[in-house]
């Protein structure tokens, strides 16, 4: 099995997704356990892959037995293995926690719902492990098309959000493909490693600059980077609660990962101000997203705009490109996935209990003290309070910004945290002190939801406490050699 570790994170969720409709013919109740088991197996394979990479170095796997650049290769290195673990583990917990909420939303259609969510996970993981630019595009489309359908399944207002998402998502994916076309015209290859070897001889061509710009713009749309985030707030606000819980933590991360991969490991555009531009756009995203989040009255929209702000941190770190900033960006991918998952799961618990989505009506604390407490832990991580994970990722980003001699960008990082204090305070206040609702039903959220939620909150703190080990063993090596 060790030989196949690089492909398993794609193969397992794909086969699991395809089994859903077949098993669904026999029993609809098997869908949820099967989906959680599939995701858990994927997470286990991802963790095994990460340990293997750390022990024995980068793994390259030629699909079909064809050596690159003729065939497509799948690559597990510290960065891709780490990102696989983030996506797979968080998806497992959100699928587990989202179960009761999905049953309420998709009564009778669970096999279809879980098949689509597993296809989404397979698409995201396929993007991450792929070593081929065109292959990334195809996996991106699997993830996108399943997301479109899942968001639209909310009906009513969600349909309008989903159509907008289709249009903007298609523009993003097509720009990416156009960029790939430019680099292909320039070098004749699609393999990332081959491209990295052949590009330095060709940096003078307009195709080089064009290829980078189109790819970066396309990926920026997909990762919801301000000001190209137009699809994100409505999609996350109007998607059904279980869909938002699965999608919001991980969907934009794979695109951010591909951006990092392409910019830092493949193209390395030294002559063009791509990194600097990205860092400043990231700073703008931090501030604008935070300011917009602070004015929302709908809890889901508040969290959606906070995503815009948090993706800004990742873009800023990738754009700065110094060692500490990269470590901070990678760590923030994990930290943000954990806290955003916990917050959307807590919202799903509230919706299940007939509360929300406005802040005024949230009030989890009195009836669901554990759920409320977990939401608060995640909110503290979002602000960047030690020892939560969100503190350390921002700490590294800050170090990076100062090391790069960019005090204004460092100011944006701090300003973003101040804005997070404002919007997360409003959220926390709503969780504990919102308008009381008539009592009825069980006092706490259902058990699977609680288990997943507590695991996410505990992980948020554990990652913070264990950040030194994580950075020196995984993220440091991942950023080594590419940092400026």
């Amino acid at each position: 099995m060790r030989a196949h570790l690089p492909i398993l994170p794609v193969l397992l969720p794909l086969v699991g997704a395809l089994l859903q409709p077949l098993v669904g013919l026999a029993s609809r109740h098997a869908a949820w356990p099967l989906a959680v088991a599939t995701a858990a197996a994927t997470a286990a394979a991802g963790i095994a892959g990460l340990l293997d990479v750390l022990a024995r170095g980068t793994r390259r796997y030629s699909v079909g037995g064809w050596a690159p650049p003729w065939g497509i290769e799948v690559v597990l290195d510290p960065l891709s293995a780490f990102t696989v673990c983030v996506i797979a583990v968080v998806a497992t917990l959100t699928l587990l926690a989202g179960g009761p909420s999905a049953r309420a939303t998709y009564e009778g259609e669970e096999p279809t719902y879980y098949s689509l969510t597993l296809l989404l996970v397979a698409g995201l993981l396929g993007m991450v492990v792929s070593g081929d630019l065109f292959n990334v595009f195809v996996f991106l489309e699997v993830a996108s098309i399943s997301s479109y359908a899942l968001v639209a399944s909310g009906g009513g207002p969600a349909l309008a959000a989903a159509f907008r998402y289709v249009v903007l998502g298609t523009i993003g994916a097509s720009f990416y493909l156009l960029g790939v076309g430019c680099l292909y015209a320039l070098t004749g290859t699609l393999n990332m490693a081959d491209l990295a070897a052949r590009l330095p001889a060709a940096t003078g061509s307009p195709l080089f600059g064009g290829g980078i710009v189109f790819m970066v713009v396309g990926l920026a749309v997909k990762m919801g980077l301000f000001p190209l985030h137009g699809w994100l707030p409505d999609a996350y606000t109007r998607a059904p609660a279980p869909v938002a819980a699965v999608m919001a933590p991980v969907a934009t991360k794979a695109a951010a990962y591909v951006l990092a991969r392409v910019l830092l490991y493949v193209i390395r555009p030294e002559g063009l101000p791509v990194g600097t531009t990205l860092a400043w756009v990231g700073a703008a995203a931090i501030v604008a997203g935070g300011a917009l989040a602070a004015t929302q009255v709908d809890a889901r929209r508040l969290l959606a705009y906070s995503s815009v702000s948090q993706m800004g941190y990742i873009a800023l770190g990738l754009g700065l490109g110094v060692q500490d900033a990269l470590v901070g960006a990678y760590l923030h991918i994990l930290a943000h996935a954990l806290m955003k998952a916990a917050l959307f799961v807590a919202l799903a618990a509230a919706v299940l209990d007939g509360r929300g989505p406005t802040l005024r009506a949230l009030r989890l604390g009195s009836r669901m003290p554990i759920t409320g407490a977990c939401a608060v832990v995640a909110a503290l991580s979002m602000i960047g309070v030690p020892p939560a994970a969100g503190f350390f990722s921002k700490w590294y980003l800050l170090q990076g910004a100062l090391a790069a001699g960019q005090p204004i960008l460092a100011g944006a990082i701090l300003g973003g945290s101040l804005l997070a204090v404002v919007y997360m305070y409003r959220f926390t206040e709503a969780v504990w002190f919102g308008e009381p609702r008539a009592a009825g039903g069980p006092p706490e959220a259902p058990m699977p939801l609680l288990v997943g939620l507590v695991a996410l909150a505990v992980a948020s703190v554990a990652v913070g406490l264990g950040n030194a080990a994580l950075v020196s063993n995984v993220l440091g090596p991942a950023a080594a050699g590419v940092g400026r």
Partner: protein
Amino acid sequence: MIERHASVVVQTFVRVLTPLAQLFALYVLAFGHYSPGGGFQAGVILGATYILLALAFGRDILDRKVNQPVCVALGAAGVLLYALTGVAGMAGGGTFLDYSRLPLPVTPVRARYFGILFIETGVTLGVAATLIILFCRLGEQESNR
């Protein structure tokens, strides 16, 4: 919406054409190695024969002829056939989708030939079933939503 077409000529024509078109789909599938065409095109042609039926005999015929949940499962089975061919290559000691290691009693190069045929069959099944589902759902009468 799409109603039963009254003309006997059209219905007879479609009745004759449908099996011929389905046969042609099989030809397109099998000869993809040598000429343009392959699993995807074959799947679309196979799926299209059901639109022909719906056009000539009214959309209701799809409800009678197609069990839609089974059709979704068949689509999944087609893609699964593709993936499992790849897994069989792994079982034979190669990497995922390495058809030369398929456990077949032929030379590795011939095994690749057959591997392509297997996966193209999976593609045909997956695409045809999916298209039939698409036509059934998109052409559905206005429901009470």
